């Protein structure tokens, strides 16, 4: 896939016997690579036969976070990289997206949206659709999750 590193994939069972998949990879900051990355993660979610609502929410939020990383974080510079990490199971989905930019404005209120502005809806949707959202590092690493609390927060994903 164009602009996508060879993913590191772990498929294992945890101590409770739950199957989960962990995927780490990096993409060039390009729209085509964003589309490939979303398709790859969607296939992983489909392989685990997750709830359709979870798949739809996670797919949309991953795409929104990647587009923010590409357009705003990396300023559409294809020499820059976006790192992605996903932990996917029937119990939880956790998505990490990290760009090379200066970070999200942390003091902004993402709980409401300017209904008539054609832009600025991506982060609002992420906050509405995911169970928890955190911004780590220098503000350039977003961690989004559905389901139970996890132990995977605050990791930085090398592609």
């Amino acid at each position, binding site marked *: 896939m164009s602009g996508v590193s060879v993913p590191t994939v772990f498929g294992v069972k945890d101590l409770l016997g739950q199957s989960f998949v962990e995927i780490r990879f990096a993409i060039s900051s390009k729209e085509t690579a964003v589309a490939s990355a979303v398709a790859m993660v969607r296939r992983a979610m489909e392989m685990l036969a997750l709830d359709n609502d979870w798949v739809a929410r996670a797919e949309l939020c991953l795409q929104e976070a990647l587009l923010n990383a590409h357009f705003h974080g990396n300023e559409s510079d294809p020499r820059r990289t976006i790192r992605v990490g996903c932990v996917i199971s029937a119990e939880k989905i956790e998505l990490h997206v990290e760009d090379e930019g200066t970070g999200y404005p942390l003091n902004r209120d993402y709980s409401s949206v300017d209904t008539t502005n054609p832009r600025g809806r991506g982060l609002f949707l992420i906050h509405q*659709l995911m169970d928890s959202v955190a911004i780590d590092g220098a503000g350039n690493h977003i961690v989004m999750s559905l389901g139970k609390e996890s132990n995977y927060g605050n990791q930085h994903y090398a592609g």
Partner: protein
Amino acid sequence: MEINIMQADNNTTIALKGRFDFQTHQEFRRTVDGLLRSGKATLTVDLSQVDFIDSSALGLLLLARESCEKAGGGVILNQPKDYVDKVLKLCHFDQLFQVQR
């Protein structure tokens, strides 16, 4: 995404199929601009075969609405699937557009 234009009496429908997202930005804008140039200012966007919608597509719908209203018409959203409808409602599009369900 597939885009088909259907004309019946005075109604112009843009029927979309597949993913309506950032990758279809130019094609959708070209379609709307072409219809406006040919005097079609009231457009129905048929979402019944759209499986996925993102914030870029929502922005495109708002721009189309603005252009059509300036030309004396408007945009109607037709039969969104459940998940697409959920996203439209989250972003209050049911207050901005006529949504036919």
